[in-house]
């Protein structure tokens, strides 16, 4: 059971980052690449300094830097966001494979320890599942809540959402579209890097090429599943995390379902949710930020 929350929280960190970028109107399909680079950066610095916190910070910086490329290409220069994002994934996977050559099959490094919560941990059933998490898990929960707070309850969030809904309107109201979007994309990259760090330090406990194994794409799907809301995305993260954790175990349980079918499920569910949204969208505006994917250029006649 512990693995469900472990996988779920890793997905959640990356999805939360994508959510922030998308709320500002920038689709970043480079999550898989940013996670891979974050993962290798965390593993390298974790080994080097023997401290998971430093690993986490370096992973965040690496993810943020890679995201900055997307920000420059897709936001500042206004290139196609889909193309730039896909390029970022390929670049990130390639870079991480290259940089990680020497770390393959190295022994595990210090991981994020559990946050001591005293007697809570010994509660029946709930204890080991909910209160026996690493402190990074609690950071993820905190990040989710603060993301919600910033988006919904602060001037910064209001401006960010406005940029993602209608860049021209936000611009007219004095909100800088380019600065907001680049900042959101970089913040998203930092969180994807965190997700990668969690993956190599706590979950896979090592680095191999392709260790991300499509989890970045699941994070992108999660944002849609969560209807661009931090809370609902958290629910989705646990659900998808459960499916991913289940996959390798099925056979041991003797269940005759192909694990490939299970790994398809998150995407199938996402397609279902998308369909439901588009039906709903006939009666009300779509849950997706209206300006997503669209570059903004201020125009004079």
């Amino acid at each position: 059971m512990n693995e469900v929350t472990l996988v779920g929280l890793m997905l959640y960190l990356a999805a939360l980052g994508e959510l922030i970028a998308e709320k500002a109107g920038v689709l970043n399909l480079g999550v898989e690449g940013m996670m891979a680079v974050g993962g290798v950066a965390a593993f390298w610095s974790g080994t080097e300094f023997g401290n998971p916190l430093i690993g986490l910070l370096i992973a965040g910086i690496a993810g943020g830097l890679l995201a900055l490329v997307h920000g420059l290409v897709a936001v500042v220069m206004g290139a196609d966001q889909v193309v730039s994002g896909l390029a970022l994934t390929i670049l990130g996977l390639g870079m991480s494979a290259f940089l990680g050559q020497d770390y393959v099959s190295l022994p595990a490094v210090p991981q994020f320890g559990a946050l001591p919560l005293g007697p809570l941990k010994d509660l029946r059933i709930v204890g080991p599942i909910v209160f026996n998490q690493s402190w990074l898990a609690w950071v993820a929960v905190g990040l989710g809540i603060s993301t919600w707070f910033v988006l919904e309850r602060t001037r910064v969030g209001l401006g960010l959402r406005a940029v993602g809904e209608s860049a021209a309107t936000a611009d007219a109201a004095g909100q800088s579209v380019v600065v907001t979007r680049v900042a959101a994309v970089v913040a998203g990259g930092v969180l994807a890097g965190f997700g990668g760090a969690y993956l190599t330090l706590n979950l896979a406990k090592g680095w191999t090429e392709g260790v991300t194994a499509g989890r970045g794409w699941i994070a992108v799907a999660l944002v849609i599943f969560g209807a661009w809301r931090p809370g609902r995305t958290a629910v989705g993260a646990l659900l998808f995390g459960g499916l991913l954790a289940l996959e390798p175990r099925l056979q041991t349980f003797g269940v005759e379902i192909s694990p490939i079918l299970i790994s398809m499920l998150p995407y199938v569910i996402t397609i279902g949710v998308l369909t439901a949204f588009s039906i709903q969208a006939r009666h009300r505006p779509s849950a997706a930020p209206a300006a997503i994917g669209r570059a903004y250029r201020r125009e004079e006649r």
Partner: protein
Amino acid sequence: MSSPPAVELTNIWKRFPGVIANAGAELRVQPGTVHAVLGENGAGKTTLMNVLAGVYRPDEGTVLLDGVEHVFGSPADALDAGVAMVHQEFRLIPTFTVAENVALGSAPPVLRRREIEEQVADLAKRFGLQTDPRREVWHLSMGERQRVEILKALWRDATILILDEPTAVLTPAEANELGRIVAAMAADGRSIIFISHKLDEVTRFCDEATVLRGGATVAASLPVSSLDAPTLAELMVGESTLVSQRRVRNNPADPDQPVLSVRHMTVHDIHGIATVDDVSLEIGSGEIVGIAGVAGNGQRPLADAIAGLATPTQGSVRLEGDELGGAGPNVRTDAGLSYVPEDRIGVGLAPRLSVTENAMMRTYRTMGAGPMVDFGDARRHCEQLIDEFNVKTGGLDAPIAGLSGGNLQRLLVGRELATSPKALVAAQPTRGLDVQGVAAIQEVLVAQAEAGLGILLISEDLEELLALSDRILVMREGRIVAEFDAETATRAMVGEAMAGSASKREPA
């Protein structure tokens, strides 16, 4: 004069490539008054207001507010100086609440929703604006959205408020409501600039009026009491040099042989508002029926629905008696209905495709065998079109994006006529074209009508409608509110019906 005017624009010039939008325009607005700016489409009203609101920088001229000169680099600068503009297209975020839209750009670092909502409600109450700060904007009617725009300006404490044709999207009741709000704001010491071309509103809501023509001011700060319809028409249009020359047709229209008939058509937009409301019309063989109306009164959804690009909620379209029902554009083309849409580029033509590819869009299905397209055939077809309609191109394979507006439209009209249709819907076919372009398109339309084509001509250009049509129908708020025989109708008569003072459907 004790205090300087709130706004003083002097000798404003603004040129765009190929167009002089403002040629020495002047405007003087006294504090605490409602000032009308009048003029025809293209008279330079909106450009002048955009100069005042910081959207455009004037090429020449000065902007004085309360006697102090200002140079605005952006709309934000103008807003800081107290000038706010409510554009015709609202700048609101549909998924935000009213309060969020109002606070955007000047919100405190941490939003206390309840508090902001209360403040917005208080502000709204002070000026008699009815609104619910907690509602999301997409629920609201156009009138309510406009009130949110006004609230935005008041929230920023704008002392000069520009309303660009504010009543164009409003129902009469909402327009009256707006009149009260404007009066309340003026009583509060603010200056309101009210752009309009409806005389009755100007006399009811405004104190003074400035009239623009051809980018220059032809009458400054007239008291509205001195205005009447003939004076105003003369000021706006100029000497009667523009009186329409009716294009005489040899072959008279035959209204008894209807080619296109629309019965009780109603179209709803995505918000469930009826943009076309129970419209019926009939076009005879060789007849040109004009649709007049202020922009946004349902002309476009009507044209789209007839052409099969929008689905009416009710009503039927018949072509020579055959019901077209829910048929798509392809079937309609085959049946003999053609469409020259308002958006030439985008709906009518694909800008990046070549001249040949654009020319074959209606006929490609008959070129070549099976799935193959015979491009030789397509080029011959295209050459014929270019020749017949005198289109100047940079080669058959060049993207059409490089063509001038007149050539684009000749290509589009030519393509739509090449299928030998029985009826044609032409929406704003000459808008934005130069004099020769306009003449060329008008000649084609008249020649086609002579040959028996029934044409529905939708235009904002009254001269064009009076010159070309047999009958003119006036659309307002989605309905046909008046019908005129184009031979005896005058600008004033049609204009009055467009503006809303006449609502009788007189026999043609």
